[in-house]
């Protein structure tokens, strides 16, 4: 009887709308399920790593120099209060100011007496150093001052300064053995002190000296501690965090813009967002097309349905006849969608592993729940629409 009813109602009906809606449903469900799977298996892991600080990055920040700073109407330095407020932001894992020199300092070499390179010396809390090298201590009375120089500074020296000024080039090992001196000038005094390069930093572009030396030298050759700082260093969970960008913008703080470019997590979040949006869009369109196609089918079969009702057929049996083939088709498309998901996840899994990332194998249970929810939704809405259209016809 079911097939007979289907034959009566569906005979001569166009199937094109249903084919389009079916393709839309396949794409929509596949995209949404892939987004759910990747969110759980990849993005959530990256987010967790970000939040735990495992993927944190260091940013060195300063205030933007504008007309107000140039004209002295606004400070170009961070105050203690600004440092404290910055440190309390949720995207900041740790933050400390750099203390700079309030005296003039230059780098010299014994054999090259005419060589004097201005040395931007700073000090920062040891927890922000890449590694704490041996001999990283100094106390008044010590002859030799340990210094950590920026790897970039050494590169710049070797590539630009040394050839242009006829100075010797240094390897990392060599410069650590070479007798260098720092000339301290200030408060009417001038003194040369031997320094030893004890390490290199990829993180900080200035020359770092121990805090004790900076305190002593600022008192001896400078104007003492200034209570404000030209730069701060921050450890952030996610440099691509839009909240961080907004905060820096609002405060006129600057850093290397490359450092703020989207991270893998940000890119993945955007990708998953687009994927989920497209999936939901396709799903919504497919649902609307299905509902309209059913309405049209019922409208075209109006005379047949009317006669079936006159013969004693009930709305539930007619609903089953109209929706009867639809439910197996939806389940078939859903099965195909899940098969596509499994294959995609397998291919992505090998690609991601090749990139040094990890992706747990298997389909997350949330994907099954989502699939069940979407399938139920499209079947439920369709059956409801079919019943309503038939009831309208019957009345």
């Amino acid at each position, binding site marked *: 009887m079911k097939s007979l009813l289907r*034959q009566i109602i569906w005979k001569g009906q166009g199937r094109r709308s249903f084919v389009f809606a079916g393709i839309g449903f396949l794409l929509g469900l596949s995209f949404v399920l892939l987004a759910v799977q990747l969110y759980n298996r990849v993005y959530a892991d990256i987010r967790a790593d970000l939040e735990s600080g495992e993927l944190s990055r260091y940013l060195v920040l300063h205030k933007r120099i504008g007309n107000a700073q140039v004209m002295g109407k606004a400070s170009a330095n961070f105050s203690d209060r600004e440092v404290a407020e910055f440190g309390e932001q949720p995207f900041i894992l740790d933050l400390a100011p750099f203390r700079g020199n309030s005296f003039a300092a230059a780098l010299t070499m014994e054999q090259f007496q005419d060589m004097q390179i201005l040395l931007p010396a700073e000090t920062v809390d040891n927890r922000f150093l890449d590694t704490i090298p041996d001999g990283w201590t100094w106390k008044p009375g010590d002859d030799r001052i340990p210094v950590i120089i920026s790897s970039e500074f050494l590169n710049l020296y070797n590539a630009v300064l040394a050839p242009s000024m006829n100075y010797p080039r240094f390897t990392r090992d060599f410069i650590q053995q070479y007798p260098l001196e720092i000339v301290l000038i200030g408060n009417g005094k001038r003194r040369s002190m031997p320094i030893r390069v004890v390490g290199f930093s990829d993180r900080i572009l200035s020359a770092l000296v121990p805090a004790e030396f900076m305190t002593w030298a600022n008192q001896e050759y400078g104007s003492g501690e200034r209570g404000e700082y030209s730069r701060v260093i921050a450890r952030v969970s996610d440099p691509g965090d839009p909240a961080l960008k907004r905060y820096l913008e609002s405060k006129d703080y600057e850093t290397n813009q490359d450092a703020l470019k989207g991270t893998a997590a940000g890119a993945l979040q955007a990708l998953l967002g687009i994927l989920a949006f497209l999936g939901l869009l396709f799903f919504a369109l497919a649902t609307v097309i299905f509902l309209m196609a059913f309405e049209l089918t019922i409208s075209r079969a109006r005379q047949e349905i009317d006669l079936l009702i006159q013969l*004693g057929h009930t709305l539930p049996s007619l609903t089953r006849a109209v929706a009867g083939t639809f439910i197996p088709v939806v389940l078939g498309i859903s099965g195909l969608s899940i098969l596509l998901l499994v294959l995609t996840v397998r291919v992505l899994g090998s690609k991601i592993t090749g990139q040094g990332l990890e992706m747990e194998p298997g389909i997350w249970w949330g994907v099954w729940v989502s699939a069940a929810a979407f399938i139920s939704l499209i079947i439920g809405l369709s059956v409801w629409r079919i019943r309503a259209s038939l009831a309208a016809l019957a009345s």
Partner: protein
Amino acid sequence: MQIRLQNVLPSNIAEGPARQSDVWNANLTLQPGSRVLVNAPSGSGKTTFIHLLYGLKREFSGNYLLDNRSAVTMGRKDWAELRQIRFSVVFQDLRLFPRASGMENIRLKSELRPVTDQAGIREMAARLGMADKLNRPVDTLSQGERQRIAIIRAMCQPFDWLLLDEPFSHLDEANIRYARELMLERIEIQKAGFVLAGLGFDYGFATEKALHL
């Protein structure tokens, strides 16, 4: 199932000129198993009466009661059940699915509440001379052949009342006789009554009651 009409007057009849009638604006009771002939000229409301009894005509004044229950208050589900087991009908305009075969038309009714199988259907068709035409699409059959398909369809379900709206209008005498014999046999088996709407003669049905519209 008892049928009672109390001062029933369909909207389309009320609009016409008032006249004396055994049905309209009257109290009429049809007891179970009654054999009723409805006599009236064309256009006087026979089809309206059959449709009213079958629940297709809902616009009327007065009360229509089935076993003392108002038919007006019955919903779609109730009427579906009534049409499955209480009322069977041969429409004047037949109301067949033109692109379906005769057998499919009959099965669409008979399989709701089966009283016979496909072999039984073929046997009835053979009695009406339709055995070799059951599988042909209805729209390829003559009007008389279609009428016989509609009659077989009405016989293939349980019923208390058989409603016949000019059921033999396209049949010759021999086929009328075969159809009448089949109908009376099924009526006997089901202990049912019938209402035959015709043009003044009962086609040998030996009716007990004649109503004038």
